[in-house]
């Protein structure tokens, strides 16, 4: 009896001592690891259930430490930490197809920790298809299908209607004015490289301007920021001169490189404008702080200026200082509008189908959301509809 009482007493003292320094620190439970889905590999998800000591308001657990090893016996090395209350850690592993084992430690105050059982093995691998982006695939299929349909229609001889775009109507007039005045045309294809869609659109517009310039025997100068853009511009202009039947009039040096520096380029273009006094200046593509410097200089020499950009911050400057401005989407429509080529026209019409889908989706979503706030539609359904467009 005395022995039993003694054991109980010692147990009680131990419990009280533990209570004095904090709580009992227990390890996290059910630790597991699996391949991270929908990725390019080399990632494993480590999951666990919270340590029973990890409760709200309790300071027994300060966080978790994740350890990894290539065999179940170890050695285990720390690969990262997770905050208190977290049950997930994404581990970026060195190799796909290799077995990895994990342990998770609950970290207590003053370096105390409680370690879980070993979990694994788990292997990472790359997925061919990201199932979370099915919505993007569907959108691409709709868009591309409609583009192909309209391209087919245009190529089979059907006339496709495109509304008037004022800025583009003036391209021919601007080139004609330069011809009448016997002055050159300056075309700036933006300040970004060929990996920007605005630059690609600008180069396509340049093709049309170059063709007109070749037909009218008007000099065309194209100062460039990037060598890739310069090369593309040279190809486009050369082809335009060939189409116009004047390959000998093509001068490669008129399409030249200046510098990649923003204001170095601005200083050079301003200098060209002040010295050569071109009759028409085109700013097509992506522009930044130099936009107003260009447009003001062009305005001061009395040149007709046609700008086109999708840079929202620069559009105001072009709108106030240029004669005509292609706003955003108009820049991308320009090549189709100017060339009337069936493939490009079909593409433009196909994009319009995309806009109809966009407007319909927003209108339907807004209607459902409004009905939901009036209590006429379930909240979950509205959220499910909005999530159709969620990009992960």
């Amino acid at each position, binding site marked *: 009896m005395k022995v039993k009482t003694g054991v109980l007493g010692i147990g009680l003292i131990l419990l009280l001592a533990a209570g004095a320094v904090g709580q009992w620190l227990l390890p996290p439970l059910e630790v597991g690891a699996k391949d991270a889905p929908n990725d390019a590999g080399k990632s494993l998800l480590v999951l666990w259930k919270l340590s029973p000591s990890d409760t709200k308001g309790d300071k027994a657990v300060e966080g978790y430490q994740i350890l990894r090893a290539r065999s179940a016996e170890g050695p285990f090395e720390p690969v990262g930490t997770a905050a208190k209350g977290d049950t997930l850690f994404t581990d970026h592993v*060195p190799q796909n197809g290799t077995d990895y084992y994990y342990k998770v430690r609950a970290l207590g105050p003053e370096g105390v920790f409680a370690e879980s059982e070993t979990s694994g093995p788990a292997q990472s691998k790359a997925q061919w298809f990201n199932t979370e*982006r099915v919505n*993007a695939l569907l*959108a*691409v299929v709709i*868009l591309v299908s409609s583009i192909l349909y309209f391209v087919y229609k245009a190529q089979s001889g059907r006339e496709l*209607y495109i*509304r008037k*775009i004022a800025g583009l109507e003036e391209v021919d007039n601007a080139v004609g004015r330069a011809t009448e005045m016997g002055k050159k045309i300056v075309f700036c294809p933006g300040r970004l490289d*060929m*990996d920007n*869609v605005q630059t*690609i659109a600008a180069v396509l517009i340049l093709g049309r301007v170059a063709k007109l310039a070749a037909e009218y025997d008007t000099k065309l100068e194209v100062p460039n920021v990037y060598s890739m853009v310069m*090369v*593309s511009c040279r*190809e486009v202009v050369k082809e335009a001169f060939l189409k116009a039947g004047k390959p000998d009039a093509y001068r490669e040096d008129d399409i030249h490189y*200046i*510098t*990649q*520096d923003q*204001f*170095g380029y601005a*200083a*050079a273009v*301003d*200098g060209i404008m*002040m010295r050569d006094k071109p009759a028409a200046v085109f700013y097509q593509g992506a522009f930044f*702080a130099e936009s107003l410097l260009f447009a003001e200089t062009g305005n001061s020499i009395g040149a007709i200026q046609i700008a086109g950009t999708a840079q*929202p*911050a620069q*559009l*105001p400057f072009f*709108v*106030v200082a240029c004669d005509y401005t292609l*706003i*955003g*989407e*108009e820049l991308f429509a320009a090549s189709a*509008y100017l060339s009337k080529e069936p493939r490009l026209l079909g593409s*433009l*019409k196909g994009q*319009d189908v*995309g*806009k*109809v889908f966009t*407007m319909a989706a*927003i209108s339907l*979503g*807004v209607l*459902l*959301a*409004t009905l*939901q*706030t*009036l209590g006429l539609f379930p909240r979950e359904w*509205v959220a499910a509809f*909005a999530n159709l*467009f*969620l*990009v992960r």
Partner: protein
Amino acid sequence: MPGMVSLTLAGFLTLGIMSFVYKDNPIYKFCESIFIGVSAGYYFVLIFYQSLLPQLTDKIGLTGALTDSALAYYRQSGSLASVQWFNLIAAVLGMMMLMRLLPKIGWISRWPLAFVIGSIAGLKLIGELQTNIMTQIQKSILPLWAPQYVDGSLSLAASIGQSLTNIVLVGGILTGVIYFFFSKEHKGVFGGAARVGIWFLMVTFGAAFGLTVMSRMSLLIARIDFLLRDWLHLLG
């Protein structure tokens, strides 16, 4: 002394470029030429050391001394072998681009050009679709009546304010898209909606104009501060 010389040179070049405000002049031409020449040379060196060496020659083992970025990759992956082939493709495309320097086989340079433009168009399609269309649609799904609760009870003023915000936002987006619809003439109701759309755009441009002018003013102030404080020591 070297600091004073560089400061004086910087001050002279700043004033030389600013002299363009008066009119084109020989000093501006001189400063412009220096600016273009120095920046073109600077970017050549920058691309050589930050792009060509670490991204190409180091990874395909042409250069002995690995740059920091190549070493960092090596430490992370334990191997350079996995990226070598891809970089060789880039090297071949780059070489093909240089073929334009030889007039007889200059046509070869069109192939890498076509590759770059085609692949960029494809890559951008997905990115633009996700960020500029799908995310935009998702964020635009807003109720036209948005009740707001303060301390658990309906606040009519806050609800009307939020509802007006949502109506302006949704209306602006829809009419803006209508303006950029090219398949139908801007006539009747459709034309009216397109006109509302362009008004929305112009109001936005006006706000952006004011904001950007303010930021340009701060750039000018910084430059004048350099001239008066750092160069001429006229400010304390």
